[in-house]
Structure formats: structure tokens, C-alpha cells
């Protein structure tokens, strides 16, 4: 059992004072008399009269639930303002933020949760996106009078073999692989600190193991991928979980690729490579051509670190069920299925949609096949690739996974706008997917860790509420409960 640091939610507003908001609240400076009535009436903390100040602060539009929800109510700010100085309206460009998978509401609700640790105001969707299929058309069916639940357990067991260390995380997720170079060191530190605070884990990705992570070694999953960048005996021996990456959902069957611009001297040193060159991780492992080779691979890592759990990350081909069985016989503890709609620092657009099946279809296929083989309860099935929200996680578990691996949502917590420019020139303009020295300080590690920590706090509130309404005591009881789901079919 991994000890968690004391948990506490602290507000972590963004360094920027204005995010992209659904509603725009404006106070006309010439008309406002600073009476402070708006701050007294609006129940959503949009207005604030700071103690000791005589002027009303700039309104916090991100808290506003929209005038159509307040009109006619006694607290409606516009009606209460004695000088008619308040304008509240929709932001005409709000819907232009984001995309089908991450519509504006999912992005801003994630920002809200990351700032406050609480659920977003009503009217902002925080559970499903607009993609018209998969998780976005899958709904829970709540029993009319659920079994009363005394205490909800959101934990996840990461080893179900009869041997090896017992590891239990208090929340059913851990952090996805993101390599040093594809994201900044500050972002890595943010993620690993949040993982430690929650008593869970976070993967290094294939970019080596920066020294700054060593104090968090008990929470670091180290990845062994085809390029073997920065993989050393020491980094394997330090890790409680070693992840072998065969394929990545966002580019199944293609190798990894770090563009030359992002390969700074420091990145190159940690990867043990030449700086300012493009770094390729080929596909597949050039030493693995069969399940027998795969077993040798697992045995090799186990002999280097007998105390580590071995996780195998694969994509979702036609025969994903057979791949799962092969991995089981090779002796893995955790099988991580990575579906196609997941995040990436850079991948050919063609690979993101067209190769390998979406995770929603792969989870039940594998879960049921392993059940049929009588080996389901010895292997931990983790799902990843396009899981954006607390509800996506719960749905994946209901489809048959034990837990999930989260990447993109953690970046959105750090202000990612999903603009897709991670690979361009200097990299991310928000200091996330970049190693540019001018951009990196935009996300200080303390701030980042708090944001991610807060997001999972809000997610946990949603999980507890959900399990309670379903009348279930733990996620273990939710696994494979198809009877609790309703699927509407994709919109074609």
C-alpha cells in the first residue's frame, strides 16, 4: 500500500486572469457606483468586493451560470444593479473553443475543477462530449431505489496475481506516459506530485528518467519502449511498476517521434542521444517477433527488478483479445489497452482516427474473452486513449476495465486549450508541451500539481455520487455491469 501525502484542496487560479468563458459579464465602468450589491446578490461568486477595497473587482465570468438561468430570480444581478451597469451575455465565440471530443464545456469545466476542486456550476457539461458515439452515447441507468451505501470505496488494486507486491491506489486511475521533451520538466513534476498526493502513479513515457523525479520514485512508472531512450538498470530498479510499450493508441503501429526542435541539450542528455536531432522510436521492438519473445522481455525486466509489477501497453487491433491472452501467459500484471482517440505530442493525423478500434469496443471484447479463458481475475485491465472525464472512467469500468490511465485531462487541468499545436516550432504556447525556456515557466510545478490534484478531487466527488446512486460500494462491483449502461448508438 502506497502512503498518500495529506490531501487538501487549495484554490489554484490560473496565472492569467481571464480564461475563455461561456458567459461574458461586464460592468460598465462609467455607470458603476461601487455599491457592492451585485456581490451580495449573485450566489455564484461572480462579483467580489475585496475587504478593505472600495471598488468592485473585475467580474469572474467563469463562475456565471448564464442570464437565462437567473432571469426572474430575486438574485439576478442585472435587475438588482441600481444604475443598470451590468451586462451579461453569451460569449459568441465560446463554441469555437475545443472540438467534438473536447467541446468548450468539457474544457472549461475541467479548468473550473482544477481551479477549485469542486464541480462546475450547473449548465456546464462536465461528463460527456459531443463526438456522437462511444462514451458520448453511453449512459448510466440508475436504479429507482438503490441499495443504501455506507461508505464508497474508489480504490483500485494493481496486482491480482497470487505473487508479487500488493499495490492499491485510492482512486481508479494513474497518469499516462508523457516523455521528457514532449512535455516540460515542470509538467512532469506537476503530474508526479499530484500522483504522489493521491497515492497513485504516473509514467515517465519514453524519454528517460530525469533526476528531479527521483524523490518521487515510489510513484514513478518507468517506461521501456522501442527506442530504449534513457532506459537504465537503475531506472528500472527504482520503479514500482515497469511499463513495456508495444504500441500507442494515438499512432498504432507507428513509432514515436520527437522533433529536432524539442530535443534540447538537457533532453538529449537524459535520453542519452545527440541534441537537435529528430529522435525516432521505431515500431515494433526489434527483438520481439512472437509471444515467446514477449515472455523473454517480461522475464528480463523481472530479473532486473523482481519487486516491480510489469505492465504491458498495447493498441487495439482486430485480435486484441488474443494479444491480451498472450500477455497474460507472458506473466504481466497489468494490461493497458490504449485506444485510438488518445492524446499525443505529435502523430500523423491519419493514424489518430483510422488505425485500430476505439477503446469502447476493445474493453468488453478483452474483458469477456479473458473471463471465458478463466483468467480475468489474475490480470488488471487498464483502459486509456480518449478517457476525458470522471464519467468516462466509470463507463470504462462498467464496460469491463479495472481502472484507467489519464493523460490529456491532466494537461487540460494545466490550461491546455486542445489547440493541437504541441509539435509546432517552439511547441505549446501555454508552456505545457514544450521545452522552450521562455514558455516553460508559465506552468510552475507547485501550481500544476495543485491544479491536477484539484481536478481529481472533483472527479472523486463525481465518482462517490455516481456509485452511491448506483447503490454500489466500490468500483470492483461496477466492473462489467452492462446492465447498468444504456447505449444509444452512434450518430451517423
Amino acid at each position, binding site marked *: 500500500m502506497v502512503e498518500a501525502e495529506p490531501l487538501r484542496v487549495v484554490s489554484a487560479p490560473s496565472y492569467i486572469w481571464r480564461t475563455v468563458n461561456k458567459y461574458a459579464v461586464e460592468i460598465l465602468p462609467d455607470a458603476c457606483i461601487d455599491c457592492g450589491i451585485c456581490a451580495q446578490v449573485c450566489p455564484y461568486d461572480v462579483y467580489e468586493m475585496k475587504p478593505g477595497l472600495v471598488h468592485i473587482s473585475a467580474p469572474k465570468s467563469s463562475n456565471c451560470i448564464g442570464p437565462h438561468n437567473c432571469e426572474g430570480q430575486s438574485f439576478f444581478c442585472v435587475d438588482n444593479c441600481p444604475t443598470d451597469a451590468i451586462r451579461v451575455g453569451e460569449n459568441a465565440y465560446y463554441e469555437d*473553443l475545443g472540438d467534438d471530443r473536447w467541446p468548450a464545456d468539457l474544457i472549461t469545466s475541467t479548468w473550473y475543477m482544477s481551479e477549485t476542486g469542486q464541480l462546475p456550476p450547473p449548465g456546464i457539461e462536465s461528463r460527456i462530449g459531443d463526438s456522437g458515439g*462511444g462514451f458520448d452515447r453511453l449512459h448510466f441507468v440508475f436504479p429507482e431505489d438503490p441499495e443504501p451505501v455506507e461508505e464508497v470505496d474508489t480504490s483500485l488494486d494493481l496486482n491480482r496475481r497470487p505473487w508479487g507486491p500488493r499495490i492499491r491506489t485510492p482512486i481508479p486511475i494513474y497518469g499516462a506516459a508523457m516523455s521528457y521533451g514532449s512535455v516540460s520538466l515542470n509538467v512532469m513534476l506537476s503530474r508526479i506530485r499530484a500522483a504522489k498526493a493521491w497515492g497513485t502513479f504516473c509514467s515517465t513515457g519514453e524519454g528517460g528518467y530525469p533526476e528531479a523525479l527521483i524523490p518521487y520514485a515510489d510513484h514513478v512508472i518507468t517506461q521501456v519502449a522501442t527506442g530504449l531512450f534513457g532506459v537504465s538498470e537503475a531506472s528500472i530498479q527504482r520503479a514500482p511498476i515497469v511499463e513495456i510499450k508495444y504500441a500507442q493508441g494515438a499512432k498504432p503501429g507507428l513509432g514515436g517521434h520527437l522533433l529536432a526542435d524539442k530535443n534540447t541539450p538537457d533532453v538529449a542528455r537524459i535520453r542519452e542521444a545527440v541534441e537537435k536531432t529528430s529522435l525516432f522510436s521505431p515500431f515494433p521492438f526489434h527483438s520481439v517477433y512472437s509471444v515467446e519473445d514477449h515472455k523473454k522481455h517480461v522475464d528480463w525486466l523481472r530479473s532486473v527488478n523482481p519487486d516491480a509489477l510489469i505492465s504491458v501497453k498495447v493498441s487495439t487491433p482486430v485480435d486484441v483479445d488474443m494479444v491480451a491472452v498472450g500477455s497474460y501467459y507472458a506473466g504481466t500484471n497489468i494490461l493497458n489497452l490504449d485506444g485510438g482517440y488518445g492524446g499525443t505530442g505529435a502523430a500523423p493525423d491519419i493514424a489518430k482516427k483510422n488505425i485500430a478500434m476505439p477503446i469502447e469496443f476493445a474493453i468488453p471484447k478483452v474483458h469477456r474473452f479473458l473471463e471465458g479463458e478463466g483468467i480475468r481475475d489474475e490480470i488488471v485491465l487498464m483502459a486509456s486513449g480518449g478517457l476525458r472525464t470522471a464519467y468516462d472512467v466509470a463507463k470504462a469500468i462498467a464496460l469491463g476495465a479495472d481502472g484507467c490511465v489519464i493523460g490529456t485531462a491532466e494537461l487540460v487541468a494545466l490550461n491546455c486549450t486542445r489547440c493541437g499545436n504541441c509539435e509546432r516550432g517552439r511547441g505549446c504556447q501555454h508552456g505545457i508541451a514544450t521545452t522552450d525556456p521562455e514558455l516553460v515557466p508559465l506552468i510552475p510545478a507547485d501550481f500544476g500539481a495543485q491544479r491536477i490534484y484539484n481536478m481529481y478531487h472533483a472527479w472523486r466527488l463525481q465518482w462517490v455520487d455516481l456509485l452511491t446512486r448506483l447503490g454500489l460500494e466500490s468500483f470492483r462491483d461496477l466492473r462489467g455491469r452492462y446492465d447498468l449502461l444504456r447505449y444509444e448508438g452512434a450518430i451517423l
Partner: protein
Amino acid sequence: MYERYEIPIQLASPPKEAPRRFQVIRGEDCIHCGTCVTACPYGVHLKQEADARLMALPEDDLCVGCQRCVMECPVGVLDIGVHPDFRAIGKGTFRPRVVTRIWDEAASGRIPVSGAGYRGPFVQPGFDAIWTDMSEIVRPTRDGIHGREYISTAVDLGRKPPYLTWEDDEPFPPILEIPVPFLLNPPGAIGRGLEPLVARAAAELGTYAILEASDVRGENGHVIPRFAAEEEVDWDLLDGARAVEVDDAGDGLATYHAIKEARPDLVAFLRMPLRFDAREAYADRIRAGVDVLHLYADPHGREIGPEETRFIAPVLRDLDQYLVEEGLRDEVTILASGGVVASEHVPKALLCGADAVGLDTTYLVALGWNGNPEGGLPSPIRTQWGVQRITNWANACRDQLLEIMGAMGIRDARRMAGEIGRAMFHEDLEREFMALFPGGNGHG
């Protein structure tokens, strides 16, 4: 000795007036503080040259939509929206993502790469409802490095006899090998007059352009003249040609056989509309010795003729199955056209059963068409620029084909045709998925 096939690529920028993705809106209350000048890494916001106290109009075309300036403007007057021109791009088969990707490919000749994962709908009709397989551990490589096998994208067009005979002195049927599994169809009404350009692009690529016989002016050996139904065959046009296409309508089949009789050295294509209920007619033609069946769907990939039309992909798949059962599939080459537009459509059409595909709207988009029936082509189009745009697109398409084949572990494009087991259809996956839930079909 292996000779590497390479398509020469070179930057071919879009015309300046090409639609842009974003519009940058700066409200009237801007205080000209200059914060956005430093916030934007792409030089969208600049001070006026004449008066550095004032902001110049934003350079929309450089904006990548990151929202950084929006977040930093101290008075909150900036907004980033989708540009109206971008919204004017066509729909359905020619949705913005398809069109803009072809534009990018035509400009750079390279595989479009971006960050942040997939952004679109879960599934869309047409080729989008198919996923290709991948293999976790085996992969040939395009370069044959590490002792791997090379990947070849070449395919053959022509009749493939089931066995060879030595008794009579019948010559071996002619075969046309093309280095990429696509040909260029005639440009149609929108591209009227572009025929010489299309012929040059085909020659550049080593593939062939099918052109209406009346438009052929002896351009080069990479043109396949097409005779319309009832059209008198102009034999001069066939001098130097290696293949010919005849429309099956009316007396087309008789013309087809007459040409084959006179010119057994030509690979002859018979052109027929795609409709599954015509499968027996196709089978008859194959039994009668047709070399290449060119089956065309409408520009959106729908069958032509029946009241309830289906999309080209499932039709090709079912037709492949039918021809296999009839024992005819391996004798004929199936060339499929219509609705095959984006790079990823090419491998998917092959997996469904085509040996090669014919492209038309793709290169019109590469030349600047926005996929909208109201939209036209920029004019004038310089031939050199146009040829470069098409060859750039072709290179990007081929590179993506290599990626898909590599991921599948298939090293020869000839082996793609009809590999249905390596394609996943949304319809099938969803049916299986739906059955998991009580009540099965959860629609409504």
C-alpha cells in the same frame, strides 16, 4: 537491383486568398498596451509601422488558435473564432477536415502531423466508418532497414489468367504496372481544360490519366483514352497508348471486343456504374475476358442506379465476396472510383476489394477547390504549380499508405485487395457492442 520509387516534392503554397482557419476579433476597447504582441508566438498581433503607439490589424492567416492572447489581454477584448470562409468549405465527403488536409498535403507533400490526439466525431458515414488493423509485433519497413522487408505500393492492371498454356501461341495478356495504386480520372466539369495538366501529373507519378478521347491530343504515353458509349473509335489516338477505356453502355461491349481484337497489346478497361445488383453482369463480363472492370460510384461514393443506394465500401466488400465465390476474383482487375477522396480512403478501398482506385475530386481540391458545389477553381492555374500540387498530394498519400501497410505488416499493395479481415467496420463492431446491453438496441 531495387530501384527506389520517389515522388519529387517541393513546397507549393496555396494562393494567398485561400480560406483561413481562424479569425481574430479585437474589440473597440483595446487599450493598445501591446501585451498580445509578446503573448502571440506567431506574429499575429503587431504594432502599426507608422505609429508604434497603435495596434495594426491582426494577421488572421498566421493564427493557430491557441487562445494565449485571449487569456493575456488585460481588458479582455480579444476573441478567436472559426473563420467564416472555413465554415463555407463543403460538407459530407468534402468536410472541412478532409479538404484542409488535402490542401496541406498538396502544399508540403508530407504527412500531416499534429499534437493533441484525435479531435473529430466518433465515427462518420463512408470510409470513416472503417478502421484498419495493426499488428503489435511484426512490421516491414519502407527502407528495408534492420533486415526487414521493403514495402511496395505497386499494383498491376490487367487480366490475370488462372493458368498458363504453352500449346497455342497465345501471347501473355498485357499488364500495366503502376507504382502507386491510383489513377487520375478526367477532371469533369469543374476542371474543364485541365486535361494536359492532369496528364503531366500522371506522367510525373508514373501512373496514368484516363481522359475523354475527345480531349486527348497525344499528350504522352501516360494517358488512357476513354471512348464514350456509341463513340466512333479514333484509332490514331491509340498510337503509343498502352491502355484504353470503353464505356459499357449501349454497344460498348462490342466496341470493347473490337478494340481487343485489333489491339491485343492494350490493357482494356470496361467502365460500368457501381451497383451491387449488377453483379451478374460484372461476372458475365469477366467470363467474357474483360481485363479491367472500372466501377464508378457517384462523387460521394454512392451506388448508381438503385433506389436505395449504399456506400462504395460495403458494396466493394460484398462484390469481392461474390466474385470469390464465383471463382472469378483473381482473373480481373477491379478499379474503383467515386467517393475515394482522402489519403486514408485509398488503403480502405483496397481492403474492401479494389486493386486500384481512380481519383478525381481529390486533385481538384489539391488545386484549390473547396469541395462546395458553388466553389470553383482559382484561375489561372499555372501548369507547373498545379502539377506540383498534385504530385505533392500523391507523395503524402503514398507515405500514409506506407504507414498503414507498415502498421498492418503487409508489404505488398497487391496483397491489400480484399483483405477484409484486416478492416473493422463500425457496423459490425457496434452490433456486437449493442448486444451487451439489456434491451440490445438502445436507440430512442
